[in-house]
């Protein structure tokens, strides 16, 4: 969906062919999400089938260029006007890792959390370094993308901090529960 709409957005600026579309997409997203040409052409074929773009036949030698149709412009407008759905969420490896680490023998959840936090902070250092070089100041699209990655990574660290505090509460509640429970073995012995 997002690739198809980005392709439409680029085509709205003027007709072009597959390789140019791939390069334009990658330039604007600072190579963060590389596309292969095959992916671009299969997207174009789908869009053409749905009447959102049409191919321009320009003789046997020329590469086929694509143009956005009025229906394509409508679809693009509607994409911009409709809030992006956050649910159901995409699968998230970090969340899965923590969920799977709970109560697992030989795995210390607190250590997994700290290793992930270090990794996330190192990623933030990398992203901030890109911000510091000033290139984002003159390129709004790149600045938006970079900030989005920084905020997402920060959110991960906050979630990890919260998970650590939750784990500590869980462990102390467990200890307290055990302390208040009668100790069956001791009772047995007395009898």
């Amino acid at each position, binding site marked *: 969906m997002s690739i198809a709409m980005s392709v439409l957005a680029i085509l709205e600026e003027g007709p072009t062919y597959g390789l140019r579309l791939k390069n334009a997409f990658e330039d*604007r997203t600072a190579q963060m999400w590389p596309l292969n040409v095959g992916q671009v052409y299969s997207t174009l074929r789908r869009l053409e089938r749905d009447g959102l773009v049409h191919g321009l036949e320009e003789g046997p030698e020329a590469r086929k260029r694509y143009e956005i149709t009025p229906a394509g412009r409508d679809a693009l407008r509607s994409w911009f006007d409709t809030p992006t759905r956050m649910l159901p969420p995409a699968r998230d490896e970090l969340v899965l890792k923590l969920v799977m680490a709970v109560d697992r023998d030989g795995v210390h959840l607190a250590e997994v959390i700290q290793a992930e936090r270090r990794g*996330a902070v190192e*990623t933030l250092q990398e992203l901030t370094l890109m911000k510091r070089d000033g290139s984002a100041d003159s390129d709004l699209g790149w600045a938006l993308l970079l900030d989005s990655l920084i905020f997402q990574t920060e959110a991960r660290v906050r979630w990890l901090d919260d998970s650590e*505090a939750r784990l500590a509460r869980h462990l102390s509640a467990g200890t307290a529960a055990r302390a208040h429970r009668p100790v069956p073995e001791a009772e047995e012995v007395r009898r």
Partner: protein
Amino acid sequence: MTALVEWDDVTKVFGSGHVQVDALSHVSLQALRGELVAVMGPSGSGKSTMLSVAGGLDRPTSGRVVVDGEDLSTMGAAELALVRRRRVGYVFQQLNLIDGLTAEENISLPLELDGMSGRRARSAARTTLALVEMRDLAGRFPEELSGGEQQRVAIARAVVGDRALLLADEPTGALDSSTGEAVLRLLRAQCDRGACVILVTHDARLAGWADRVVFLRDGRIVDQTGPRSGPEVLLREPARR
């Protein structure tokens, strides 16, 4: 590169007996000239105590703190006060600017009290205000400045006289995101001129500006970020349009 500040097996205990709290427990760390080190940890992990012993505001229970080659633990009160005034700059969330003084006077007054002539102190204040792009507002009083501008004055006051060590405790406080970023750029600029900045924060986005991030838990350093290495995709030069 030489260490500008070193915590050498520092322990700091508050209280005694049942109410004894080990704020720092055998902390050893060196921070270099030109380096920005962030210290992250939850409340009560000892972050602020690390700053107060480095700034000579508090003495360790055991261990040594060495600033710019001088061991603070062997110093008398007067000597320590001198280090605090001349070598160390503080940037706190509470800016503590004096309401009745202009931005320039807020910076020059401490220098004058320290024995500098009025003219030299004012000139140093103006030069430092220019560093934080506040020269044109030198004559304004704190209440005539925005939160971000007041923070700039507080940073100028911290760095005036080329102090070698800057200690920043949650320096962006309630500032909005872009003003907070400007504060971090200013702190980084101080590193570029050779100062060492220790930034205490619970905010990972601020810590991202550091060369090194140290993680503190229950008064102990439990981890730190390694040499820069990111996901493969981030190492590629971003293509420019």
